[in-house]
């Protein structure tokens, strides 16, 4: 590597967003930078954002793809609000992302793509790199295409291949600016293009050319360094939300001694779960890509009836289709896990954008009263624990569990403390081996879980179904009093779970001015906002709910300890409605429905407003 002639400057945190056309390889660039950052020992959080169209028209605003990372020496929970660096490979990317750049932030642009045609396509009247439009920023505009071309001139590569390697040039440059090593990316390139040595060579040369170019840029006086973050001791890896979710499911199956049966129908942003699980056949995971969302959950119900740990994953529209079947799982009291990786709605909505607007659907989106357990993951790594907890509750209580994640968690990543698998608890099941005294409706006192008698076990032959059943025998019953007893029983099976879930213990102040109550992916933004306001001596607490049905037992009394309750959500006030309805308290919402995650600043501003400035 080049000798660094510039001095070093240490900062606490940096936010970079790589943006370009969908074909520019920004997701790859971002994930390579993330890996190098993980190796440096910083805490980090990432957020990829890309269009629903696989190849939107080149150069158009709709075709912009981006990958954001925040890395820090502190513990952080979000990919950051405002950008320190915006890499804008084309004018459309600059247009759609400039508003998020800090004033005096750095723009890195590939001049070669700022052609008349691309400028016109993205609505620039004049080339912003050539007038003083960007005067408030530090602009590093380079003809990366020519620079890469120079670096590979002896290789006789097509212009197309050269311009495809410009992302590696940009990555090299940013790596130099922030003191990231190139080794992991070089190894990745060697692996990825193992069968095409000319691509290995071209990409590595482009990467190094970008890195070495750093020394020559006048706009940059320092190489910026970020110290290692303090982590709890242990072994870490970086993990993406959907992957963590799968690991949690696989672990739960192992701890319960069951095979996984997973069925799904392709839907953004849940499809990765089907992809990932289908690759782990040596864990005896049976995956089935069904003909539709309904078939996916119905086949899961069939597999669960036969003794597998049954899981399906979908997003909002698919969740709507699964409603009737989920009701059947409630009525037949079978343990299954439904993952809803939420996206912006209603209807098809914005499939690749994030939102947390399916909470009420999860709780109430079925006919009759058919209560299910609802959990939500709060960070990419937390998807592991949430998935594990969902399987545990489903199996130990013989009840369907809905897990809410969202596009932000599903595709976002952060460091994950790899758990000691031996220390994770075993999961009980209600499988029946001995036919003596078997009755499918015989219940365990503590959980009210019924017996799980599966086909193939002698003497357990019995029938289940969606018709109302007699509370004692499980036979079909239309008796009015019995129906009411069964309705109460199904609700009680959910409520009883509150006895074993952790009580709420607010972070920060345990009583006082403001309690921020959140759920799901807004965790990081809320926690940072609460930290910031507390550093300024404001009296603030934070409760983040994993269990949304049932709520922790002491939630109501906890709310009463604060003068103001603030509920930030990426919806129009769903948890807010539940808290007000259930606890008859006043609470205010901070609601954002833009298909984008909540930012730290907006939560902070609202806290300050309530805390009395």
């Amino acid at each position, binding site marked *: 590597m080049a000798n660094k002639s510039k001095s070093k400057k240490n900062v606490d945190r940096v936010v970079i967003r790589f943006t370009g056309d969908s074909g520019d390889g920004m997701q790859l660039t971002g994930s390579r930078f993330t890996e190098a950052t993980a190796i440096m020992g910083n805490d980090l959080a990432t957020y990829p954002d890309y269009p629903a169209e696989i190849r939107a028209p080149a150069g158009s605003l709709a075709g912009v793809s981006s990958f954001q990372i925040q890395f820090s020496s502190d513990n952080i929970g979000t990919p950051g609000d405002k950008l320190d660096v915006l890499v804008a490979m084309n004018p459309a990317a600059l247009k759609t992302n400039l508003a998020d750049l800090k004033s005096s932030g750095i723009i890195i642009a590939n001049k070669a793509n700022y052609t008349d045609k691309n400028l016109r396509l993205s609505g620039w009247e004049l080339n912003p790199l050539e007038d003083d439009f960007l005067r408030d920023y530090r602009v590093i505009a380079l003809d990366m295409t020519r620079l890469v071309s120079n670096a590979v001139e002896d290789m006789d590569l097509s212009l197309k291949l050269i311009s495809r390697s410009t992302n590696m040039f940009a990555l090299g440059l940013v790596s130099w600016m922030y003191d990231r090593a190139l080794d*992991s990316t070089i190894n990745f390139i060697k692996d990825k293009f193992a069968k095409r040595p000319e691509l290995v060579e071209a990409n590595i040369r482009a990467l190094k050319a970008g890195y070495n170019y750093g020394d020559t840029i006048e706009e940059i006086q320092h190489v910026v360094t970020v110290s290692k973050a303090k982590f709890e001791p*242990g072994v870490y*890896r970086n993990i993406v939300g959907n992957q963590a979710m799968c690991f949690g499911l696989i672990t739960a199956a192992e701890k319960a001694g069951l095979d996984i049966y997973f069925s799904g129908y392709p839907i953004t942003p849940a499809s990765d779960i089907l992809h990932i699980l289908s690759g782990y056949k*040596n864990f005896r995971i049976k995956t089935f890509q069904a003909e539709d969302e309904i078939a996916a959950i119905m086949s*899961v119900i*069939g597999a669960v009836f*036969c003794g597998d740990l049954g899981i399906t994953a979908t997003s909002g529209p698919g969740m709507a289709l699964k409603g009737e079947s989920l009701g059947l799982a409630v009525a037949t009291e079978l343990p299954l896990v439904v993952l809803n990786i939420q996206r912006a709605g209603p209807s098809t909505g914005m499939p690749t954008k994030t939102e947390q607007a399916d909470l009420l659907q999860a709780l109430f989106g079925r006919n009759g009263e058919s209560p299910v357990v609802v959990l939500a993951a709060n960070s990419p790594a937390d998807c592991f624990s949430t998935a594990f907890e969902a399987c545990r509750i489903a199996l130990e209580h013989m009840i369907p569990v809905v897990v809410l994640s969202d596009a932000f968690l599903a595709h976002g990543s952060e460091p994950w403390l790899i758990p000691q698998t031996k220390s994770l608890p075993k999961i009980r099941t209600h499988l029946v081996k001995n036919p003596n005294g078997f009755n499918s409706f015989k219940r365990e006192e503590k959980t009210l879980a019924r017996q799980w008698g599966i086909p193939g076990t*002698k003497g357990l032959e019995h029938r289940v179904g969606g018709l109302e059943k007699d509370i004692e025998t499980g036979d079909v019953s239309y008796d009015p009093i019995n129906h009411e007893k069964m309705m109460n029983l199904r609700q009680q099976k959910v409520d009883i779970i509150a006895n074993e879930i952790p009580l709420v213990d607010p972070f920060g102040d345990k009583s006082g001015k403001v309690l921020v109550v959140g759920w799901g992916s807004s965790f990081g933004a809320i926690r940072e906002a609460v930290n910031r306001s507390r550093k300024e001596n404001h009296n603030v607490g934070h409760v983040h709910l994993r269990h949304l049905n049932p709520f922790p037992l002491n939630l109501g009394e906890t709310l009463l300890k604060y003068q103001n309750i603030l509920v930030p959500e990426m919806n129009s006030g769903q948890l807010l409605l539940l808290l007000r309805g259930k606890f008859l308290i006043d609470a205010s919402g901070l609601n954002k429905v833009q298909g984008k995650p909540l930012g730290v600043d907006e939560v902070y501003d609202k806290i300050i407003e309530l805390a009395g400035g």
Partner: protein
Amino acid sequence: MSEVSTITLSKKDFISDQDVRWCPGCGDYAILSQVQKLFPKLGIPKEKFLVVSGIGCSSRFPYYLDTFGFHSIHGRAPALATGAKIANPDLSVWIVTGDGDSMSIGGNHFIHVLRRNFDLNILLFNNQVYGLTKGQYSPTSEIGRISNSTPFGSVDYPFNPPLLALGAGGTFVARSIDREQKHLQGILYEAYKHKGTSLVEIYQNCWVFNDGAFASLTDREMKMETQLVLENGKPMIFGRNQDKGLTLKGSKLEVISLTKKNSINEVMIHDEQNKIQGLLLSELTYDKNFPTPIGVIYREEKPTYETMLHNQLSQALKTRGKGDLDKLFNDSHTWKV
């Protein structure tokens, strides 16, 4: 039946303790009785039967059989059976469905389960009417049907179940009739024997809402003229005096008289494995100029979905070794703090 059984079960082992609640005289009773007669003969332990249904009169079936049973939701039995068969391929899985359940609300699952060829059996009770909701025309009702939802006559063309099943890639397509008990018993056994998805369409009389829909096929006098009983390797002949046959003229079937000398040689021989023939026979379903074929229309051996899937599972286990959580968690770059 030829199979040697070490398990002694009888019909009464398969009668559940539930009162049967179909209308008296319903064709479903006859089908239930034939299934209860068949199961003990198959040499399969009782606990390995799973009977799955959707919604409708026919779908109450599982409650009346003392096996594992699942009365699911409208149209979805094939999807539920799919999961069960993948979870435990050892089970003998039977789907009981009706014409509304399988051809209308569950049409999608019906075609996909056939296409995938799981080793399971579908009994399609076709009474050409919605019974449980009190008499609306169904997707197999003839055009012009007067019903409570079509007071001026239906303008809806019916589905042809065997043709649909063949189009979906079904590997066993057969038809029988509730009143033809012996024939039904034989076809149910053939369906069981077939390693793949077996569809048995059973014409079933709903005497409350569509009485006599199949009268011409079951009437002792008329049926000789209206039924074409298919037997593999045998000529397709019918008629009171076995004096008519089917022959192929160009690409169409034709009825010929067998009174002329040697005309028997022109009669088509039933070949269960000939798909084109199966398609032609299926086409006769609603054609008043032809007899209605009953028996095995088509049969094809093809690997089943669950066999191929479980082969992949064993293969993965062999080549990669048993899944190990610690290895899994550490399969990417890790660092120690």
